[in-house]
């Protein structure tokens, strides 16, 4: 990327950030709450995208890590009195370990078999959370109610606005970290494993280590998102984390755009708002309508929203100046690596 292009991009990101900071002051509290959930989902989607989009491993069970993160935060706050902000790193660490350990044996499984193994994890999670051995902490099927954090007095913000900024801060942290990770040596190794596993190994990439680590980091992101989501919703229960959540996350990743960082936001907006819109249009068959929208998206934007924007931007640039511009992280469908 040229210096000018990089600057342009930086300015664009800063503008978006300024816009994000202005948002809670123009929206009603209920909308701010929804956007907070979008931000939490975006972190989860970036995590899943590392695994699925960049590393080519399909997970149908990331809802389980979302649940572990949410419960870690809830139990720490409710049973141990830990302040809400301190629960986020712990939730991330717990999920990293859980994901890494799950990733180790799962390495033997390729493609669809891995998808089934993770699916099993996702299906089992609500029942594990209800299990009597854990009920002392998890509250069984009744779940745990969390006290909503107050904004510090000096800010003058409402609870929802404060939580929004709190979540936004973590979004910035994790997207900067993710951006660095994916654009660097490890990111290239992840993509190489996805596209040419044998060649990657021949080049000296420790395939199994990178795959397990990717699984762990991906779970870490999802767990942090779960903790942030739980604090915003103020309640966790096994019914909050059914297998449908896992599928929803995968839908978000694909709709947003595989192997795309900005795609996480588009995907998050989709999974947060499209079900509501479908419910408003048709009470009788909201999920049928959701399905139609999903198919329409897949048909018109086969590489996700981010992919479509990338193509549109490239076309526009080409029209302005004929020099071809190649994006360093191509969508999955293109196999060229720069």
């Amino acid at each position, binding site marked *: 990327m040229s210096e000018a292009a990089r600057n342009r991009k930086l300015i664009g990101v800063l503008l978006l950030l300024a816009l994000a900071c202005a948002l809670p002051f123009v929206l009603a509290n*209920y909308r701010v709450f929804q956007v907070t959930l979008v931000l939490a989902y975006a972190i989860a989607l970036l995590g899943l995208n590392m695994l699925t989009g960049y590393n080519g491993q399909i997970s149908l069970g990331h809802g389980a890590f979302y649940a572990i993160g949410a419960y870690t935060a809830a139990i720490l706050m409710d049973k141990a009195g830990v302040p809400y902000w301190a629960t986020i790193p712990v939730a991330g660490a717990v999920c990293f370990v859980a994901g890494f350990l799950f990733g180790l044996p799962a390495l033997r499984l390729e493609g669809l078999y891995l998808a089934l193994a993770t699916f099993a994890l996702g299906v089992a999670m609500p029942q594990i959370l209800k299990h009597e051995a854990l009920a002392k902490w998890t509250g069984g099927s009744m*779940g745990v109610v969390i006290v909503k954090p107050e904004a510090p007095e000096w800010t003058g913000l409402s609870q929802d606005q404060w939580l929004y900024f709190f979540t936004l801060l973590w979004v910035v942290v994790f997207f900067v970290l993710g951006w660095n990770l994916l654009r660097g040596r490890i990111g290239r190794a992840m993509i190489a494993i996805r596209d040419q596993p044998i060649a990657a190994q021949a080049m000296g990439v420790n395939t199994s280590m990178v795959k397990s680590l990717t699984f762990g980091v991906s779970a870490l992101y999802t767990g942090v998102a779960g903790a942030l989501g739980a604090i915003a919703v103020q309640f966790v229960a096994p019914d909050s984390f059914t297998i449908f959540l896992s599928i929803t996350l995968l839908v978000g990743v694909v709709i947003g755009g595989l192997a795309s960082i900005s795609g996480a936001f588009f995907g998050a907006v989709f999974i947060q708002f499209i079900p509501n819109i479908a419910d408003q249009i048709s009470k009788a068959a909201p999920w049928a309508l959701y399905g139609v929208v999903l198919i329409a998206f897949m048909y018109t934007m086969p590489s996700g929203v981010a992919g479509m924007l990338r193509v549109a931007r490239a076309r526009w640039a080409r029209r302005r100046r004929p020099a071809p511009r190649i994006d360093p992280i191509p969508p999955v469908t293109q196999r060229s690596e720069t």
Partner: protein
Amino acid sequence: MTHSLNRITRRAALALAIGAAFAAQDAAAQAAKYGPGASATEIKLGQTMPYSGPASAYGTIGKVQQAYFKMINDSGGINGRKINLISLDDGYSPPKAVEQVRRLVEQDEVLALFQTLGTPSNSAIHKYVNAKKVPHLLLATGATKWGDPKDYPWTMGFNLSYQSEGQIYAKWLLKNKPDAKIAILYQNDDYGKDVLKGVKDGLGAAASKMIVKEATYEVTDPTIDSQILTLQGSGADTFIDITTPKFGAQAVRKAFDSGWKPLHILNNVSASIGSVLVPAGVEKAVGAITVSYYKDQNDPQWKDDPAMLEWRAFMGRYYREGDPKDQSNLYGYLAAQVMTQILKQCGNDLTRENVMRQAANLKNLKLPLLLPGMALNTGPTDFFPVQQAQLQKFTGTQWQLFGELMSTDAP
């Protein structure tokens, strides 16, 4: 001359009439008080329902209630105001319920929430609605915690509470089988412990003597056969069965097949003939006892009951796609009638405070779909509308009421 005079008086009369009309309207406007979601023409209510997801069978409750309020609106509304029930899907997911309820409260600005369904979803919004001071009325769940006016003055349940149910079994046993040796099986969660507490409270001092064995199971257990055998081994002759449908069916079958054949008290959660007794084998459930508080449309004795005919006519006219055999459709209609009564009592003072005051001011409300002789009562310290019920015995084909109406005290 007479003609023009006539015209003048007519004009004067008209002016007078218009003036009077305005004055009357002014007076009404002055007298009427409106909180959020209420106006001279409309009252907005909100609810979340599991239209999708694992509990979607209950979604019909929301649909029958929308049909009910359409009927009310067609006949002029309540005190001249139309009811607008905004019913949103929560998919039985607590975070979705929080989101949808926040929408109802903050964006749609409903006057009150009505019949939000499910214990997990209601637990998730319990604190929020009380902090926001929004009436959270007639919840479609039996947990006893909804009747806690001291800590949660804005929340009131509807169903006969689990503890009341337990108390009724206990009271009946004390009176009719004082030397019973009781074995209890309960689901190891809030629901099971709730019913159990009612039983123990009802037995009082006699509890330790009469209860000879307790056993629990987890929702995740595949079967409860070993628990039944343990209970049988205790020598008990009375079995209080606090289980959900799948385990209820297993318990009915095993208690019979093992040769135990105790007096089987089956809690109302598992009293469905179609989903519990038929799979277990109806002949094995003969003599089982459970509790009930409203008329069962599948019971032939209510076939020509006027209230039942009225309900059937409503189903045929306003909710034709609904299943007239499904008890949820009768239950939802009944709850909507109670809500209608609360709003009627509010008169022209449609503030959230007054809605709550009137909800806690139901006096001897006798609805014709309740069992004969039953009445609903609430008060500032009594947030349990349904506190009476009658026992019924399974004949092999249907539940048959017996004995008299029984009441419980507020837990």
